[in-house]
């Protein structure tokens, strides 16, 4: 029997004792508070029974772009720019050659490994997104900048692999390349594939996935999927689906373009599993387990191979309260079990 694996995608909201003074803490204080928050999240992940808890909600990181950019020489920060509504991020300006100064994720990774025996997965912001979200005042072309970020990320993955090997854990190290901007330029699919492939070049014994979300460019993305040397795709779907029950196309309109994924696999020389987003991270609506079950069953109807399915939220849940997030994730686990029962019959 194939087990449907449930997995976290990314960030959770930080407890106030961490978030309100994140940038004001000394490094020691921040590590201590982030560790306390990560331990609390790990406890809640254990309670709901999720299989892979990611990196425990990214408690050691303030924001996905800034966290990595701050550890790379050649980037200067001038101030915040808007992401959406009143949410902002610190956007860097590339002013000289990029070079990874020190590891941005080692402390967090070691901490999580030391505090859970569950599977973990390290999200790292991808080279295309880092390129796209930076001001470029140095490199002549966008692909040159993306490849420069890719080399920095490659160095970071090698850092994490050393930690993984020291930990004595079995199985491959799981790395998720986050590329929310990956599909925003229709004519730059080659930059996405080349830079993601460069990020993982020459690194073995890892399971590499890519996370893409909130795009109208999935059809184009799936065309480039066969060129990605990855093991899986963790994508957003629930945001565009209806809340109605059912496993027909009308009820599950958000998942219909899984057909593009199946077509992509047919032209690929390697299989890639689908991390199926079944929980909308931008609404407080708690998806009932039955709705989640139906989303999985519909996806399985299209993919016709449960071994190619993993179950996750659409994206990180940091815009929701911690309680809402875990209610959603708890139902995700419960809904997956319901789907598992049906699929196993």
């Amino acid at each position: 029997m194939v087990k449907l694996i449930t997995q976290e995608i990314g960030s959770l909201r930080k407890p106030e004792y961490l978030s309100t003074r994140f940038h004001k803490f000394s490094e020691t204080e921040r590590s201590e508070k982030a560790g306390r928050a990560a331990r609390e999240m790990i406890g809640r992940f254990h309670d709901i029974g999720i299989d892979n808890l990611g990196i425990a909600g990214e408690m050691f990181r303030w924001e996905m772009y800034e966290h990595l950019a701050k550890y790379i020489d050649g980037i200067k920060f001038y101030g915040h720019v808007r992401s959406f509504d009143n949410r902002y991020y610190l956007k860097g300006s590339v002013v000289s050659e990029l070079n990874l100064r020190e590891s941005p994720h080692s402390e967090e990774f070691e901490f999580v490994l030391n505090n859970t025996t569950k599977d973990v997965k390290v999200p790292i912001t991808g080279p295309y997104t880092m390129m796209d979200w930076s001001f470029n005042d140095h490199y002549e072309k966008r692909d040159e900048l993306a490849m420069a970020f890719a080399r920095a990320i490659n160095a970071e993955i090698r850092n994490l692999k050393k930690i993984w090997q020291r930990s004595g854990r079995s199985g491959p190290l799981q790395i998720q390349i986050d590329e929310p901007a990956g599909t925003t330029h229709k004519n730059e699919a080659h930059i996405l594939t080349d830079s993601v492939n460069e990020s993982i070049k020459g690194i073995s014994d890892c399971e590499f996935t890519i996370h893409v979300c909130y795009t109208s460019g999935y059809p184009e993305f799936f065309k480039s999927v066969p060129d990605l040397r990855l093991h899986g795709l963790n994508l957003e779907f629930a945001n565009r689906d209806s809340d109605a029950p059912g496993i027909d196309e009308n009820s599950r309109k958000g998942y219909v373009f899984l057909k593009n994924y199946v077509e992509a696999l047919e032209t690929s020389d390697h299989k890639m599993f689908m991390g199926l987003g079944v929980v909308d991270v931008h609404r407080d609506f708690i998806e009932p387990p039955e709705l989640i079950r139906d989303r999985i069953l519909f996806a399985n109807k299209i993919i016709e191979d449960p071994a190619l399915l993993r179950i996750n939220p659409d994206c990180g849940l940091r815009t929701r309260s911690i309680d809402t997030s875990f209610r959603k994730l708890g139902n995700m686990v419960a809904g997956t079990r319901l789907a598992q029962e049906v699929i196993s019959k």
Partner: protein
Amino acid sequence: MKYDKAIFGIYPRSESLRVNIGRHERGKLEGSIREIIAEEKKKFYDFTRKNNVRIGGDPLFNWHDIYRPLFSLFSGLEQGELHRYKETNTFYRKPKITGTIEYVNDPLKHQKDEFATPVYLPSGNRIENFFMPSPKCFLADAENVKSNTRESLLSAYRTLLDSVKPKTTVFYEHYDLDESVMKDIASLGDSSTFIVVTPESNNVGKAFNKENEFKGIVSGNREDLEKNLLLSRESFIPFWNCKKTSIESKTQVNNLLDSIKSRHVDSNQFTICNTDFFDFLPRDIADRKVAFDGVA
């Protein structure tokens, strides 16, 4: 060389305004967000006056994205899913059409919600430089668009503009300009008071100006410049790059205007402007760009 400046669209919030709006949204702000925004706007107007900005208007500090205020002005709309704005890390709420779009709230009379459409009233009650998303991008980005949506949207726009009677209206179109959208915009009122701005291209044929003359048509594509100048009553010159943090120089503007004067139009009345929002930049960089020539 002599020139004026125009600033279009959403201007970045200051760090303190950003923090205060955050506190307001969490119910933790002591004091009035309206007063804080008003004070920020006052500083902005002082800044633009000092820096020779002829067309500025409201900095739209209240706007979370270009469509948001329409939700409070028009009926038949709801906030839809969060969607990425083109190649940026900026998102907007998709307008979700739920019925016939109608103008229901006058932005001058219904100011109870501090996130309603902001208006710039420098003197008396005449609005200057009203800002609107173009109908084309609104419809392209909306969901659940029906066969009558376009007509009801245009009608709502007409009623709104007829009600507030701005001196100038800026229509922001983040897709290409084409004959169809220009005709739609021209149908909304006196096109000689309209400025149409796009970061993309202008695909409008030259024959268009025989029917309608706009105050300004500006596109981010420099190859469109000659065509845009022919179609416009005033000479708007895209200058500031809102996707780069490097600050433009006096030499750059002089070279650009010299080149335009020799190749395209013999004018002494140029207005340099942006075609993308300054909101894509940190506030400090936006301010430094606007003040690049030290005119103040």
